């Protein structure tokens, strides 16, 4: 299940996006490294405020002040007409320049958490879709309209032609998200970034939308970066999973491996707080505490105050670095380093019950 480097569509290396506030610098994304393979689905999982969305916006070059992407590389490999692939660092492109704009919405597109709010309240949904098509494809307005209708049919919107003239407030949340998907896919992007696309929807609609996205992903052979706080949602969709905590990826690997054998205490806790796939929340099993505020400068591992396996004197002093395990897994935890050799009864216990 490992992704070959030359096969990857997008490689994010050491990405750092910080927010410069009066209160201090919030490191929303703090040296994050991952890659997405062509046609693969990457699930990015973490609690609110862990930097998932900011990572997505950094890739789209849509981080707004006071946020700035201060360091890192985002290597995106585009295929030109001859089929030759060249790699371009998106961070080197001017964020509002012509090239970045042609990638944004054309080659990499994005859908959001609140589908209805994500559509303009005063424009017809059809016009909003055709606008995207006209921006990125050499077609006439009437052709664009046909493409848009076709897209609406592909996302299973009944009476697609009539719906072209509807306003967002006339559609249900699920319908709005279908429209958003139709808009995002209208130019056949190589990568779709879905930022919690089903969080605001009810469970049945959520299942429908997930099914639709899976179907379209296979059909169009595009990669998806699926951001969610809900591990259950990515379980049967993602090829790879990255778990984020406080701006850092704490564990990364093939989805099957992570669900079968989570390594990082945070991943373990997340999985434990997920009792059944059909239930959204369980207040009985939670992770102790809340995400600390982003300005805090915690010593050592950022997770140690909430970690069940925290090693006093180690985890609150040493900042863990990513460690490569077997099968291409990567984990940021001191339990898997030489620091844990003397005092890691928890770890022994953990692996024994697997």
């Amino acid at each position, binding site marked *: 299940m490992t992704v070959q480097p030359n096969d990857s569509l997008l490689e994010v290396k050491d990405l750092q996006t910080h927010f410069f506030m009066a*209160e201090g610098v919030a490191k929303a994304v703090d040296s994050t490294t991952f890659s997405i393979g062509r046609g693969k689905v990457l699930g990015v999982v973490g609690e*609110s405020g862990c930097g998932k969305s900011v990572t997505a916006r950094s890739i789209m070059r849509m981080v707004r002040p006071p946020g700035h992407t201060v360091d890192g590389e985002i290597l995106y490999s585009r295929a030109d007409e001859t089929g030759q692939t060249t790699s371009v660092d998106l961070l080197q492109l001017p964020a509002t320049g012509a090239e970045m704009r042609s990638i944004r919405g054309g080659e990499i597109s994005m859908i959001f958490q609140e589908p209805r709010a994500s559509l303009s309240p005063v424009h017809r949904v059809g016009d909003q879709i055709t606008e995207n098509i006209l921006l990125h494809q050499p077609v006439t307005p009437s052709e664009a309209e046909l493409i848009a209708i076709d897209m609406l049919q592909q996302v299973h919107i009944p009476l697609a032609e009539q719906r072209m003239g509807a306003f967002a407030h006339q559609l249900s949340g699920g319908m709005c998200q279908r429209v958003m998907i139709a808009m995002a896919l209208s130019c056949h992007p190589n990568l779709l970034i879905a930022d919690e696309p089903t969080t605001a929807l009810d469970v049945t609609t959520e299942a429908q939308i997930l099914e639709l996205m899976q179907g379209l992903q296979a059909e169009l052979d595009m990669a998806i970066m699926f951001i969610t706080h809900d591990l259950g949602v990515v379980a049967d969709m993602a090829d790879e999973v990255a778990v984020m905590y406080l701006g850092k990826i704490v564990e990364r690997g093939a989805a099957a491996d992570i669900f079968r054998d989570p390594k990082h205490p945070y991943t373990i806790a997340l999985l434990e707080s997920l009792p059944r796939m059909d239930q959204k929340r369980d207040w009985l099993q939670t992770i*102790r505490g809340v995400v600390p505020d982003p300005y805090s400068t915690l010593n050592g591992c950022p997770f140690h105050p*909430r970690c069940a396996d925290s090693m006093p004197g180690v985890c609150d002093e040493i900042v863990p670095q990513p460690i490569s395990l077997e099968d291409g897994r990567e984990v940021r935890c001191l339990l898997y380093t030489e620091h844990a050799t003397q005092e890691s009864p928890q770890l022994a216990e953990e692996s024994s019950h697997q």
Partner: protein
Amino acid sequence: MTGAINPGTGSGSDAVSTAYESGNLSDLLEAEGTVGEARTQFLTPRQLMLIRFRRNRMAVVSMWALALLYFSVLFAPMIAPYDRAHRFTKHLYLPPRDIHIRGDDGTWQRPFVYAVKIETNRETFTRDFVEDRTQQSPIQFFVKGDPYKLWGLWEMDWHLYGVENAEEIGPIYLLGGDKFGRDIFGRVLFGGRISLTIGLVGVSISLFIGLLLGGLSGLYGGVIDNLIQRLIEFIRSIPTIPLWMGLAAALPGDWPQIRIYLGITIILSFISWTSLARVVRGKFLSLRDEDFVLAAQSAGANQWYLIWQHLVPSFMSYVLVDATLAVPGMIIGETALSFLGLGLVSPTVSWGVMLKDAQQIVEIAIHPWILWPAMFVVVTVLALNFIGDGLRDAADPYADL
């Protein structure tokens, strides 16, 4: 700093802020378990509001300026060197006096004024006041002068500052004198008693009506709400000034001034209660569906208990902000009506009454200092707007700290 406000990525703050508004933040976090308890402390909404307000520099400066103004107005007879009706008949339209601290010989001295004498300008043949460089008169503090009764209670006759022999060498007019030779600065202070209180009294009246009708409207809805809303729409659709003018003209001219004052205040409140009622109604309606109200309801809270314990505290800050922002409108309203001669009239002193003397553009051109009361109107209104804005920003529970 509270750990619960999370400005970077504010999602999930909804549940927090609802609890926060009702003052239950600590309960909420206790239930979840807190991190780094040592550096996290919780403040009441009012404390938070105070902290945010203090950070708004314009609002704080305005607050102090206004406090100074109200204080001076309170002690007007003491601070003003002369009585409001004291006429220096030899010194009509005396320009503001220059205060010197350096004599003709270049020596530093305690603050003094030169005597004024009248000279006929050979070119324009107007009679102008000029400084008589041979006669100096030091400014004295705590001098005896016109007797007065402070707040109607204590007989007194000393004033903060003054000059000796004012009849001869000219009174000490900081902002000049008017057409009857009265001190404009002193009269501004006396006039401020009317102009500055009319807004407060008027807003109190509006607040009462607004809370009552807005509350009824939001609470009961239905026919009552509909009626009150139509009434508000009706009042708001009439152009203010003609309506005010009509109502003010309807006040009998032979009424005593105190009654006219009240009448004008009520006329001004007649329109401004509508916006306060709208705010109250809107808050009632939106709060009715808030989770914490539903929670209290399902816990069996009785309606009036609910209103006083939950609804009123949670919208009072908004209402007070709007009330603050309504005061300037009233001050301007009084000034405008008195300026037109439809409000208060002489011998009552208010800023509008004083500005009535500035109706003739010729008078302003020759004696521009008669516009000084206007300056006070603008500064007061500006300060009130800044304070109102500062309060509004501070009252916003979703704002970053």
